[in-house]
């Protein structure tokens, strides 16, 4: 579980600027900040109206930025995580068989 912050348009943030609503959720566990910030999170009991008039009720998550960009950011984050882990293992002198 982690804390995210949503603004008046239900867009997600990783820090509160003083105007946002804090939400504790496991929906974005393991996701990088760029991925999280590209999403809209509508909590249960609330609703959001898209500009064409369609109403979406929570709990609902959906990208508000192109998912392809978010996915690319997440993959890069995971590559960096794997590289950091590998570097740490090398410093410790640990080798992984296989």
């Amino acid at each position, binding site marked *: 579980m982690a804390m995210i912050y949503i603004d008046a348009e239900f867009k997600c943030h990783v820090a509160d600027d003083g105007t946002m609503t804090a939400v504790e959720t496991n*929906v974005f566990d393991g996701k990088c900040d760029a991925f999280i910030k590209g999403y809209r999170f509508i909590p249960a*009991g609330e609703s959001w109206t898209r500009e064409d008039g*369609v109403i*979406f*009720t929570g709990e*609902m998550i*959906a990208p508000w930025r*192109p998912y392809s960009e978010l996915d690319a950011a997440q993959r890069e984050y995971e590559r960096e995580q794997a590289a950091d882990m590998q570097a740490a293992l090398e410093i410790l002198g640990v080798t992984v068989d296989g």
Partner: protein
Amino acid sequence: MARGISDDQHYKDIAAAIRTKNETDTLYKPSEMAPAILAIQGGVELNFEVVGGTTQPENPKENTIWVNTPNEITGWIFSVDEPTEPADGAVWIRTGKSSNTEFNALKQNSINVYPRLCKQYIDNSWMKKEAMVYRDGEWESFSENILDLITGFTTQRENGTGTITVDNNIVTVTTKGTGSNEQANVIYFSAEKIDISDYTELSFDVEFENNNITSGKIGFFSANSSPYAWENHVATKSFPATNAIDGHYSVDLSETSGSYYFGISLIGFQNETWYAGTNTTIYKNIVLV
């Protein structure tokens, strides 16, 4: 008035020809034949019209198809496959085997049309357009039944038991506790990925029966390898157990292009002292708009 003598057989032949064309049994006097001939409709009369504009037409006729576009419609095509060599401004209405907006295209006889999606050819590419049909006093949007896009479901499960059945476009999913203090995780994924690039909304109706699930989720996933609904989800709607209310719901897909697995998940608590019955969720009218 000039008078002459004519063979009666000519009049009989003309009357017979009129009855053949207008498909009636009417007997005609010679004085009635000319008007009857003029009344015969040429060709096939259509039972719909396609109109454009950015404002919904007022006082539309039945089966008016409105394409929400500021671009002039230069022609229209109903087909399953993308038309080749279209003219700029042409509207393509993609059809299928079924549709929530089906209509009869002819005034006499019948050609049933099942529209699903609308695009217009603008500047050398097909652009998706919102389109609606006016039927029985209401406008209805084109949509695609998701069950028509997949061949079936696969299952990823950890603990518990359950089923998924599809009958007459109704999807019924169940999950049942094992009686041990373990959480059951199950996701039913579409057998293949679905390209949702053309759609802005997943819409469905849902009913809950005996539900003590801790969480239900429906939507799209980037992978079908995990039974955990919090992994790989792209755009989803969730139903918490204590607040699961029957109704009509939607998932926003407006920024989600590409191909993904459609999935329905259930997470069930397994403690038999609390509840170990079968939880059932019924989904109807699952469409992409």
